[in-house]
């Protein structure tokens, strides 16, 4: 089952890459829908009261203690569902045909393989391998189908993130070398070995891992690659990066950082939280004055991710549970927002907020969809955004009141910049660019309506998501509490 989840998109993607189908989009869509069906089937088989399920371990590079070891727990399952759920819509969201469609959709499917691999890996080396393999397709998607200045910007993005991942690899190898000989990359062995390190060593490992995750998310001040890359990438690339790929960073924090270096966390966690909170405020202020619609959403994404990371680092259950809900919700919302921007760009050839306006008069359906998504983004009660942000801010307030209060302000700032974007684009007088504007097509409705529905559904009834990740969250925190108990 789980092997199918990983290898099916790889196979389909490779077939698309080496062949040249004119109907590549339909084929890729079919492949990703099959993947979605299997993942939903797995979700129904999933026992929410148990830890790891569907485990699969194959001996791989035995001389180095590396196994192909994968399994699903609640945290993995949610992110796998997010991936398999969004990819069909990302494929569906493209207008017309990109040049060389076969290659484009093939790379998206290979990307899906790597993303799922990251979320299910139970072996440090395998995790790194998938982590890096996710970078190659997205690099080529941005390079080959991106906009102005892509060669320089994508290279910066690639080297920046690669630098982070190499540090992560060095940190993982460092811990791996502490496991009893013959060494092993198994996640449990790495937890034990990481915990046995001295405080100073754990701090080093903490920074090696944290930098990789912080660059991926990104967290202030490691975010400088992000706005340019989001702006230059084709919209499907931006969606992959923001809706799914940045979750790799948060997932890494929860699964690989927290339980591996408990002492490192107690020493450096506050610094990391502080950076996250600074990032929230900083990105929000930039978003408020941003004129480019796509960049505005890029900065809003930095703000949201900062809050998630701060919540996770409080080491509290509500923080991690809030992060899980917010990851799913943010994925759905940011995907929809970028799609709305792309629809507007498709009609007007403009992303500048100053050139837009009055779209509500000519495209009521688009306008209402945008409003719903936007309300989710600003965390209005009864939307998915509210549940997550509430839990996250709650965890921060319990951790430290002042930080919680500062983070709480972002909700207001978020409302400011999102409502400003709505006002500038949707209301007011029509501009020359927006006077001729046709409303949502059937294909766009098929993509956006389910997203609106999900935003509301999760907002009203977040229970199932909390249930799925409940046991997995407890297990992560148990590793930590056991460690702290044993050292006292």
């Amino acid at each position: 089952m789980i092997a199918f989840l990983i290898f099916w998109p790889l196979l389909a993607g490779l077939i698309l890459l080496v062949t040249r189908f004119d109907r590549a989009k339909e084929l890729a869509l079919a492949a990703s829908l099959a993947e979605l069906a299997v993942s939903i089937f797995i979700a129904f088989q999933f026992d929410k009261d148990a830890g790891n399920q569907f485990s699969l371990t194959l001996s791989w590079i035995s001389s180095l203690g590396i196994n192909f070891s994968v399994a699903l727990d609640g945290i993995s399952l949610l992110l796998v569902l997010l991936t398999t759920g969004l990819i069909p819509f990302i494929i569906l969201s493209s207008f017309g045909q990109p040049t060389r469609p076969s290659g484009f959709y093939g790379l998206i499917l290979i990307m899906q393989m790597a993303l799922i691999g990251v979320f299910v890996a139970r072996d440090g080396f395998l995790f790194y391998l998938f982590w890096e393999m996710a970078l190659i397709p997205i690099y080529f998607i941005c390079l080959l189908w991106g906009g102005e200045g892509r060669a320089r910007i994508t290279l910066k993005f690639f080297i920046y993130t690669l630098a982070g991942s190499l540090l992560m690899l060095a940190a993982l190898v460092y811990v791996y070398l502490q496991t009893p000989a013959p060494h092993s990359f198994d996640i449990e062995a790495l937890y034990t070995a990481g915990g046995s390190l001295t405080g100073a060593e754990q701090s080093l490992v903490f920074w090696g891992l944290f930098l990789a995750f912080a660059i991926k998310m990104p967290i202030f001040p490691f975010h400088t690659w992000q706005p340019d890359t989001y702006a230059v990438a084709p919209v499907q690339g931006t969606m992959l990066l923001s809706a799914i790929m940045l979750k790799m960073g948060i997932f890494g924090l929860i699964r690989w950082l927290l339980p591996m270096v408990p002492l490192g966390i107690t020493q450096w966690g506050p610094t990391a939280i502080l950076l996250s909170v600074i990032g929230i405020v900083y990105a929000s202020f930039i978003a408020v004055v941003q004129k480019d619609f796509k960049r505005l959403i890029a900065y809003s994404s930095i703000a949201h991710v900062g809050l998630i990371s701060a919540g996770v680092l409080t080491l509290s259950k509500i923080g991690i549970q809030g992060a899980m809900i917010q990851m799913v919700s943010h994925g759905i919302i940011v995907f929809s927002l970028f799609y709305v921007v792309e629809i507007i760009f498709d009609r007007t050839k403009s992303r500048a907020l100053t050139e837009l306006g009055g779209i509500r008069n000519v495209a009521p359906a688009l306008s209402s969809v945008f409003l719903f998504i936007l309300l989710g983004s600003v965390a209005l009660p009864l939307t998915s955004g509210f549940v997550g942000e509430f839990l996250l801010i709650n965890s921060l307030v319990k951790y430290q009141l002042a930080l919680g209060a500062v983070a709480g302000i972002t909700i207001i700032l978020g409302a400011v910049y999102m409502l400003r974007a709505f006002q500038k684009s949707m209301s007011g007088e029509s501009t020359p660019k927006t006077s001729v504007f046709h409303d949502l097509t059937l294909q766009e409705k098929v993509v956006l309506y389910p997203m609106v529905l999900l935003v509301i559904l999760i907002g009203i009834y977040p229970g199932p998501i909390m249930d799925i990740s409940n046991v997995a969250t407890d297990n992560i925190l148990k590793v930590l509490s056991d460690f702290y108990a044993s050292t006292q």
Partner: protein
Amino acid sequence: MNALYVVCGLAFVSLVAEIANYKKVLGAAIILGLLIAVGLAASDWDTPLHYFNDMVVFDHFSIAFTALILFISVFWFWMSGDYFRRQSHQTDRSALILFAITGAVIMVSFNNMAMLFLGIEILSISMYVLAGSNKESLLSNEAAFKYFIMGSFATGFLLMGIALVYGATGTFHLSQITSYISIHSGELPAFFYAGVLLLLVGMAFKISAVPFHFWAPDVYDGSPVTITAFMSTIVKIAAVAAFFRIFSGCFSSVKAAWSIVLTVMTLLTLVIPNITAACQSSVKRMLAYSSVGHIGYILLAFIANTESSAGTIYYYLASYAVASITAFAVLHEVEKSNPANVSFSGLFKRSPMLAVMMTLALLSLAGIPPLAGFFGKYLVFSLALQNGYGSLVIVGIITSLIGVYYYFRVVSDMYLKEATNSPIELNASIQIMFCLLVILILAAGIFPDVVISILASA
């Protein structure tokens, strides 16, 4: 040993091909012969055989490296058939190459300093001639001359080193030198250490470690592409193996005398060529500098664990050689299509296959998983971390990132820039070769255990 006979025989067969008039089948015959030689080398496995009064030994180490050299040679002949056909003196050239391979095989299997010297000279003299084999080109002549002067200079160091070590220990045999050192440790004369250092310098010239690398970029750049490919794969493998054999097998017990020098050389070899490569605009020159840079990673593994780094170095060299020969094969095809204007801009539009091959080769050289080059770097870094060379690993990581920068610049040029030349047609044989190379690059990266285990215990 039988492999050595076969290669030698092939060289003579190709020498007389002009007279006996079977030039047309020569290329196929050589490839077939080399494949047989690979098989013969493999059949010697686990039978440690000593020949000529212990002058050469075919232990696991030398068989593995012999097989690698012959295997890469097969691909080399495959990709460069055109180099022989296009110009005159086909038979002389292939004979010279085969003699060079003979020298390379001796360099990985010697057990006696005299044999080392013979191997190096057989290899080098052939290469001096071949570097200048593009007679009309000024650069090619310069390359040959420079290579010859610098090579002879290095040989002088080497010979002096061998002489001094002989003076101190009274023998040329590696095993006897080793035992002499261990018995007389502490009472070795000062000129013995001078000899070891002279040998280090001589070998550093041959593997082109900084600061003895200055000949390499000009020679690589000036020689015909196929010869550059040969120098940066087969010659490099042989030189590194010879280096390993002397310094790991023979002088590891006096590591204190040379380890600081070699550490500094490692650091320089990591940093300088990679930075210089980033400043090059010609792909051939960039590849030349990057091939010097890769020596840095090999030296890092060697300095970190002199005794048991054979498996790591072997894997690194194998992955590097396969990726390198792929890159040079692409370069050769590109140059062939338009010798006046060798440009990678828009290569994807001219020949998608070449562009994809070059991309894979460069990704592997840059060390991007899941390709073979990544695993090579991984093994090197983890070996160095294990032995407390964390700071050099950080340097290595940074230079790898610089590597990504200059490799990926070529990649983005191939896809983004407009094509300036006409499309390139590939013949079927070259296409098959590229498919095999892709499979090798991927398979070695996904199943590294197969290659690592060959020399794991050596």
